[in-house]
């Protein structure tokens, strides 16, 4: 990889949003969980590029969700096959695509306890494209085997599983996921394959030449900063201000 010493003309969040928007692709409905500003940015970017498609649900925000059937509707909707893309993360993620949102150490006497599995043990199975997103790319987070499987990356062929992971996006790189293994697809500008290998606890495949992650184009940056950022500010005002310098008042004031 060719390191550039010139300062980047975009912020890391913009790169990640662009990467994720490409992963989303041409689908009907993307749902984004609470406290996920970068996936939310990506979903809104995909919607702008698709002229209103996909439909985007931002779960933290009553204004950006249509639910009228209570807390179960998200899961029912996914079970119906009406959510095409969702995002999950993990205190640990392993090389088999297993995610751990529960604990480190022995389950009965954990060293570290995380909040819990949330809806992962259902959504990971039924949403066709689950994008794993964890900015911290380290041997602490990306491990050979998780201590607790909140939801597995893959199942035996007879298990009903229309969904599962398609990729893992970190602050360093993009992995794709297929056949129970990750493949290094590209390394973000400012990072190297050696960095990725050193900081990844699990084995992964990689081609002889790993490309740089394509930086966001001027068109994309313009779209992000001028069109997406004001929409984002309604839900993530602090993030929008910090990353894009856009305040909520631009829209609502």
């Amino acid at each position, binding site marked *: 990889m060719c390191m550039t010493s010139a300062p980047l003309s975009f912020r890391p969040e913009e790169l990640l949003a662009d990467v994720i928007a490409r992963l989303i692709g041409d689908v009907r409905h993307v749902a984004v969980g609470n406290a996920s500003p970068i996936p939310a940015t990506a979903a809104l970017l995909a919607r702008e590029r698709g002229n209103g498609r996909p439909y985007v649900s931002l779960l933290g925000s009553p204004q950006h969700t249509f639910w009228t*059937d*209570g807390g179960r509707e998200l899961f029912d909707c996914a079970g119906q096959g009406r959510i095409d893309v969702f995002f999950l993360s993990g205190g640990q993620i392993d090389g088999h695509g297993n995610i751990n949102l529960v604990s480190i150490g022995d*389950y009965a006497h954990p060293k570290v306890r995380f*909040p*819990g*599995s949330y809806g992962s043990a259902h959504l990971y*199975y039924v949403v066709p494209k689950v994008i794993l997103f964890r900015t911290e790319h380290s041997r602490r987070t990306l491990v050979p085997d998780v201590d607790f499987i909140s*939801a597995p990356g893959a199942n035996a062929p007879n298990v009903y599983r229309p969904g599962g992971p398609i990729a893992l996006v970190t602050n360093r790189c993009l992995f794709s996921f297929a056949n129970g293994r990750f493949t290094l697809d590209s390394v973000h500008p400012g990072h190297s394959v050696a960095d990725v290998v050193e900081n990844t606890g699990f084995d992964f495949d990689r081609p002889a030449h790993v490309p740089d992650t394509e930086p966001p184009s001027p068109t994309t940056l313009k779209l992000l900063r001028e069109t997406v950022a004001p929409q984002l500010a309604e839900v993530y005002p602090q993030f929008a201000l910090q990353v894009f310098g856009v305040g909520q008042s631009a829209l609502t004031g």
Partner: protein
Amino acid sequence: MFQAAKSLDDALSAIADGCMLVVPREVAGVPMHATRALIRRGVKRLHLVALPTSSLQADMLIGAGCVETLETSAVSLGEFGPAPRFTAALTVGTIKMKDATCPALHTALQAAEKGVPFMPLRGLIGSDVLKYRNDWKVIDNPFGNDDPIVLLPAIKPDVALIHAAMADRFGNVWIGRQRELATMAHASAKTVATVEKIHDGNLLDDPVLAAGTLPGFYVDSVAVCERGAWPLGLPDAYGADAGHLAEYARMAATVEGFAEYLDKYVYDKCAA
């Protein structure tokens, strides 16, 4: 069936030591005022079911020693960090934890709502969530072909405790889009509601309000608690008190700090 409560404590008398209590998720209208009253009363050995997650409410009940078993999918203070008393209790091992996944809890309550002993749910197979739940079973889908599927037994709580925008004098409670509150009430033997205010007239008489109403038929008692979800928010009414939640996260980080928090915000009735 509905009886007007004389006081909040009177309304909460249905919640006995050792009972199974179901409470809603952190954004659906959490009866925090009632939770503080339960802690003051010193309720013990609760089997707490948080549908499907919780934040401050579960953390405080655990910290105050009210919980024997916790059944939920996650407890967290969200942007204010991990839930400190929950985390401490699980690492020390002072409560029994039944880890679930969100739709499993919705489904198990719906099974009770429909009067069936179980319901199936997709997913879960190959997870440790399933592995540690010996009360859940895997069967071969009788309509499939070598198609394993999880069955979840119905959860039938003794009491559902909810908070909502308003109720009328007939015990009808307006829950709006928070329809899991209706499922909780249907599934539970008794339901106790706190509300922001009393609505004059009968909520069921207006078709528009009726569409968002839990009938008093399912509600055993109602107490008025203005800003009763504080410091959490109530949908379409008020937001969470971020400053207070940050203060909680800070104070509850230690046993001593949590005790101080209780002294300041729970045992001092005026502040509650």
